[in-house]
């Protein structure tokens, strides 16, 4: 896949402090006592994995240490990566678009998570793959939301359907779908307004949008992806839970992994909701989007560079 995975890894590696250093410190000591275990736990906590995953990794490392007291930090990191990869088994989302005409992708999520930017990135990706894409600007609420997505549409030469500020977002979704159909577009990507999962009126609006799309085409939306900000902590799990209730999700996209955050909350989400992760966002540019690879993610986080892990 054109070295995408490599870039993904580099993207994560560039900024992400790995566990290696902490682990080396821990395993240079004479024994894995309770202090060392606590340090291990704390190091693992920095990735926002959540208690359960941290506990599993610790147990595996402890067991391995019992069997072989000469274990090094590097070995522990390998175990961590392996456990994480196991936890994420099945989490790699892969799509083959073009099954429907048009295929509807819907992006939802809390405020500022990266939905609009990701819409542009996806549009770019599919357009480069030869699909005809149309953007639906369903955020009619935030100041200059229209201008923002319009800018992307212009820059990437992508067809767009939008409305004025304050218009009914479901109506825009409707129009976008109709336009995509009549203009023979393959994919329509709907960018929705950011909303906190605790706002019942805004969640209702999303439910309505879903109903409207379904009325037009019962199989749509074909992909409903929650855009998760990778720098957020455990609240992302609650977000996923609530969005999933109002707007049945088919997967996740995690953004801003070019920073120092490790986006571990997706692990918690996956454990609970089993929603696959389709893409990771690694920057603000259109091609800063990579398919998610559990193995690369796990290795990047634990700082494992060779391929033999």
């Amino acid at each position, binding site marked *: 896949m054109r070295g995408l995975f490599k870039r993904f890894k580099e993207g994560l590696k560039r*900024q992400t402090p790995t566990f290696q250093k902490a682990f080396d410190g821990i395993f240079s000591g004479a024994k894995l006592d309770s202090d060392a275990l606590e340090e291990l736990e*704390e190091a693992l*906590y*920095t*990735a*926002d994995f959540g*208690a359960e995953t941290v506990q599993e990794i610790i147990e595996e490392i402890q067991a391995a240490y019992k069997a072989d007291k000469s274990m090094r930090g590097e070995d522990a990191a390998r175990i961590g990566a392996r456990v994480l990869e196991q936890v994420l088994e099945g989490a790699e989302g892969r799509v083959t678009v073009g099954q429907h005409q048009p295929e509807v992708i819907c992006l939802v999520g*809390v*405020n*500022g*998570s*990266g939905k609009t930017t990701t819409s542009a990135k996806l549009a770019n990706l599919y357009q480069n793959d030869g699909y005809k894409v149309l953007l639906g600007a369903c955020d009619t*609420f*935030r*100041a*200059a939301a229209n*201008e*923002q*997505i*319009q*800018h*992307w549409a212009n*820059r990437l030469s992508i067809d767009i359907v939008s409305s004025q500020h304050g218009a009914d977002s479901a109506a825009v979704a409707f129009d976008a779908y109709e336009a995509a159909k009549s203009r023979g577009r393959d994919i329509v990507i709907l960018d929705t307004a*950011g909303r*906190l*999962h*605790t*706002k*019942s*009126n805004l*969640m209702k609006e999303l439910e309505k949008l879903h109903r409207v799309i379904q009325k037009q085409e019962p199989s749509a939306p074909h992909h409903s992806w929650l855009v998760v*900000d990778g*720098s*957020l*902590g*455990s*609240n*992302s799990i*609650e977000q996923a839970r609530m969005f999933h209730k109002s707007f049945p999700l088919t997967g996740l996209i995690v953004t*801003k992994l*070019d*920073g*120092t*955050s490790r986006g*571990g*909350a997706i692990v918690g989400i996956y454990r609970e909701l089993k929603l696959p992760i389709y893409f990771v966002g690694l920057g*603000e540019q259109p091609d800063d989007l990579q398919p998610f690879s559990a193995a690369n993610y796990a290795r990047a986080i634990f700082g494992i560079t060779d391929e033999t892990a």
Partner: protein
Amino acid sequence: MLENLTDKLGKALRNIRGTGKLTEENMTEALKEVRQALLAADVHFKVARQFVTDVKEQCVGQEVLKSVTPGQQVVKIIHDELVKLLGEGTTELEDKKPLRIMMVGLHGSGKTTSSGKLARYLAKKRDYRPALVACDVYRPAAIDQLERLAENEGCAFYGDRNEKNVVKIGQRGLDAAKQADANLIIFDTAGRLQIDGDLIEEIKDLKKAIQPDEILLVADAALGQEAVNVAKHFHEAVQCTGIILTKLDGDARGGAALSMKSISNVPIKFMGTGEKPDEFDVFHPDRMASRILGMGDVVSLVEKAQDTIDEKEAERMAEKMRKADFNLEDFLQQMQQVKKMGSLGSIMGMMPGMSGVEIGESEEKKMARTEAIILSMTPQERQTPRLLRGSRLKRIANGSGVQVRDVNALLKQFGQMQKMMKMMRGGKKGKKMMQAMQAQMGDGGGLPKLPGM
């Protein structure tokens, strides 16, 4: 129901009643619970560790009080300590005119929105004449966004879509603000990673050029463990004078606030509580402390109730109750008021010991059912419930898709409520009545009692 911290600590401290004093030994288990609670709230592990150590020092040697449970006693100590930590420093901005404020932070944290909010807030509370200056030259339509907000506030605005040099924009913005006779100049900057060398240089340069009096770090309350590094690096780069915590209208526990405060010692000055321009306030450390400890945010809950429940309407209701002529129509309105506050789940999440409780659906269904029953009545029936007999009952049951006995149950509940109101007739103030009524209504609508309301 999820156990709250007080309960957990109560258990962890169950054996210390007889011992008289809090000691390192009898506190061990309890402190583990505290640490766990902090970590679950996304407090950075180092900060959590330090905090627990401090609390331990505070606790050890204290007499075990007779008047409260050891759990409550320790929670109080922790809570107070948290409030102290979170609240250190002032929430006041420099008292200057003109006042220059520069906003910085990660992508999407809420800088631009908060710029608009701050302009409104300071214009209203401190009589400033604000100007907004758009120093984000990267994000598509960032300038338009700020311009919209400025229009909305009716305040001065400066931006230049053809200029990529942020320092130049800043300087010209200063001039433009002066021209416009503004005495509060807020510089909105682009979102950036704290480790992005070039962009960090950019805000350092901008700072040098515009000499801001305040540099506010805008941060999402739901940030994870990296919050410490975000605060640390931004502070090292530009010496922040305050933090604005955004998106507190969500249900994030907000441990990031403690992490950022502890690592940088920069005071948290404001909080964003919604997308709208007036959903903004000075920071309340006590509420944040309760939230982090998972004790719920009672104050916010009460305020939310006050916000959504129209004051005049409440008075009118209270008056009706005083006269005990509260009918089903009023009952319906009350219920709809409560609904306006948000889903029951989200209301519950703000209550002590209730965060994470799955109250949502069945309770909400019950309430919806009660509503449906009343909606199936004619206005006349709502006003005079004693009309409700025989065929009318059947009609209403059919209309709302329930059994006659459900309608009867509701009427019985309502009858009790009226009786109570009669008893209270001539009672004290309206607010009290509202409380009682809401508690009562809770039973009727399947709404659990709302403590503290």
